[in-house]
């Protein structure tokens, strides 16, 4: 699989993942929106309807309070009448209704208004007095006080005389076979003498009805276990009746609402006790509001939320596309870059491996070569030495043999240097660091220089304290010193001078070796291995001495450098690590 394919696949996967995540988020949000909208609509509808119900009820109650207040006044006036008292107290019941007739005439007079006209709220349909036991005092002439059948009249009786106004509702079966509900108000009549309740006047009215402001609202009254909701379809009344009966049986609350399915549509049914604390049987205002309006609103809101969700999803799709593209660019670049980086690293690793291999091979080779070379040179030298020990040759031959022997010594030195170098290169050289007396070492080598047969006539200047110690292995330190001193002698001019100075400097020891003679050409890298001077010189070496000396100096934690080379003066400086606590303070 190619890199490009892999990359494209990765980007596609990223995009898919992003889109899926967005889809889930959007779907969750939409569902949440649905849920909340539905809840809100339902709660709002219920709250609104409840508000409407309460408002309508409260306006109804205001009207009722007016009615009651007006009645209370009237009844108080009536109760204060001597004739009423006389009739009740003097056992002249036959005179009770005639006595009250004048007082209540305006209440009863006039045409009975249609029930819709609640404004005629003071028009009474009938009235009755209760005796001291709460039973109805039958009128002699029912025509004057509103005719009632026996069942209805019986409903007016109370178990005891009330001491305050009581509101009740009675069912009246009319002659037409209909059933009507009458609101009755019982007003106590107090004795002016004793303050005791001696009777009660029960006045019947058409019930006040809720104004049908809300479309489809139906109101009615529940009392005596019967539902009176004339506008509601008869078929649904039974269902509704059962539900209301259940609700009232299961709850002591005077006021509540619940959902009900009646008439093939969901409805919200409110009920509220009309006569709390009354001696009359419980009666409830029942209000049924169709929920179709709120359902419609809910449907519309669902569409809105659904549309918004779809739009959000679409937007999410586009956005995810764009974002994926946008994100995939750097991802692509990143993928590309990392691929390039990997290739580069592989190449570098391969190069490194081959270099290391080469290096090892070369190191091994030079070590092998040194060893292979050493044995024949040794054989050669031993042969030359045995020839020199022989007698009987001509003097010229001896001189020649001596020269050859010298060359074998030189060859051995070169081979040893090469061996050392190869060990250094391979990192196999280990040094055992001990304090080395540099002063003594320099002195010994200067003595050796003077003892050499071909030493030119040079003047040696020494400028170093005795007993100057450095840290290092004596053999290699000696090699460095030897190399520098031999060079100073080798490249000197006749009648020149060598100056050797040393001293502690900082934590280390600096040895400076200067000599007269030809300057080294600037730009010439004298520390290069197998270097050969560009200027032909009679005293040329094999070109590894300075290189080896510097390598060794560095191996000892120091360095070797050319300080200056001009005007017949060349000066090298080598730095060694000081042997701790041995050197005197400079």
């Amino acid at each position, binding site marked *: 699989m190619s890199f490009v394919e892999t990359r494209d696949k990765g980007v596609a996967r990223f995009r898919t993942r992003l889109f899926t995540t967005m889809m889930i988020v959007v779907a969750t949000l939409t569902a949440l929106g649905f849920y909340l909208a539905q809840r809100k609509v339902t709660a709002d509808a219920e709250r609104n309807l409840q508000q409407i119900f309460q408002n309508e009820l409260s306006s109804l109650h205001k009207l009722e309070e007016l009615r009651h207040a007006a009645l209370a006044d009237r009844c108080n006036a009536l109760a204060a009448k*001597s004739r009423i008292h006389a009739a009740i107290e*003097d056992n*002249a019941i036959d005179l009770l209704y005639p006595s009250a007739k004048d007082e209540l005439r305006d209440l009863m007079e006039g045409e009975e208004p249609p029930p819709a006209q609640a404004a005629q709220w003071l028009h009474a349909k009938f009235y009755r007095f209760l005796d001291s036991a709460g039973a109805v005092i039958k009128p002699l002439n029912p025509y004057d006080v509103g005719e009632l059948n026996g069942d209805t009249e019986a409903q007016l009786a109370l178990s005891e005389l009330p001491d305050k106004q009581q509101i009740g509702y009675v069912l009246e079966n009319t002659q037409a076979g209909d059933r009507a509900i009458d609101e009755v108000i019982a007003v106590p009549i107090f*004795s002016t*003498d*004793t303050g005791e309740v001696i009777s009660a006047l029960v006045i019947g009215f058409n019930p006040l009805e809720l104004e049908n402001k809300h479309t489809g609202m139906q109101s009615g009254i529940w009392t005596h276990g019967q539902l009176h909701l004339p506008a509601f379809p008869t078929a649904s009344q039974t269902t509704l009746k059962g539900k209301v009966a259940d609700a009232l049986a299961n709850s002591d609350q005077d006021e509540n609402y619940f959902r009900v399915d009646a008439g093939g549509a969901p409805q919200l049914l409110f009920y509220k006790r009309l006569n709390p604390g009354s001696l009359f049987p419980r009666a409830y205002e029942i209000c049924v509001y169709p929920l179709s309006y709120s359902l419609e609103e809910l449907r519309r809101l669902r569409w809105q939320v659904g549309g918004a969700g779809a739009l959000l999803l679409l937007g999410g799709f586009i956005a995810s596309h764009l974002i994926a593209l946008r994100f995939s660019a750097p991802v692509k670049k990143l993928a590309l870059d990392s691929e390039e980086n990997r290739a580069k690293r592989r190449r570098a690793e391969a190069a490194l491996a081959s270099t290391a291999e080469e290096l090892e091979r070369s190191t091994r080779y030079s070590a092998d070569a040194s060893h292979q070379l050493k044995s024949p040179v040794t054989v050669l030298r031993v042969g030359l030495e045995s020839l020199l020990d022989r007698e009987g040759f001509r003097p010229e031959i001896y001189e020649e043999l001596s020269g050859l022997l010298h060359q074998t010594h030189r060859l051995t030195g070169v081979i040893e240097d090469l061996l050392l170098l190869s060990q250094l290169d391979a990192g196999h050289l280990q040094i055992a660091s001990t304090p080395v007396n540099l002063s003594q070492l320099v002195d010994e080598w200067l003595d050796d220089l003077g003892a050499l047969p071909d030493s030119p006539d040079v003047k040696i200047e020494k400028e170093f304290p005795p007993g100057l110690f450095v840290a290092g292995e004596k053999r290699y330190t000696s090699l460095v010193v030897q190399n520098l001193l031999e060079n100073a002698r080798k490249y000197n001019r006749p009648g020149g001078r060598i100056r050797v100075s040393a001293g502690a400097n900082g934590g280390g020891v600096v040895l400076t070796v200067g000599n007269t003679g030809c300057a080294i050409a600037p730009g010439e890298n004298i520390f290069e291995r197998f270097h050969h001077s560009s200027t032909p010189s009679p005293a040329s070496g094999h070109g590894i001495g300075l290189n080896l000396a510097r390598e060794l100096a560095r191996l000892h934690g120091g360095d070797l450098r050319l300080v200056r080379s001009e005007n017949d003066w060349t000066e090298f400086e080598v730095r060694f690590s000081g042997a701790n606590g041995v050197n005197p303070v400079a």
Partner: protein
Amino acid sequence: MRLRGLLWLNAISSVLPAALLGSATVEGRVELPKSRSAPVQAKRYEIVTKGGVLSTQPPLAVVYLDGAFPRPASLPTKEVRQKDLTFIPALLPIEAGTKVEFPNLDDTYHNIFSYSPAKRFDLGRYRPEERPIPSVIFDKPGLITLRCDIHEHMRGLILVLNTPYFVMTDTAGRFRLDKLPPGHYTLKAWIDSRTTKEKAVDVKNGQTLHVDFP
């Protein structure tokens, strides 16, 4: 009180037919309900209602000799005045057939009426200068509650009795009935609208019988 009762008796005896005149006397004491208020020195007393029971305040009783007595041809007219929005006297015992006038001595209208079973009447509204003075003849024994349609609090009682022999006790409950015809009777003590005590008595000429109503 006693003086007044005697005056009344004198008045009654003066009109009684001679044949019925007797010389027997009944005296004694009626145990009256305890009055919560201190004894009132004034001669005024009023009608109070307590638990639907009407009585006088301070408590007084009417003691009468029940029996079948021939009704006299004529009886003196009695009077219940309306003064200071009260009935004076507040309790008036009369013999059945007595005519009672209701003069209005106030500066306002009064409308005296009664719904009592013994006598229903309604005098209508009238001013003090109304003439003739509105009156009612009470021909049936029983207790009549007098009311005023205008002044609801006004109460008066007329106790219509079958007998000419009756007397009101003093506030201590003492009474004395004399010039009684001999015979076997029931002596009754009306205490309030619900309570009438009675005792059988044997009245003999020239004797003074002592009867207490505990």
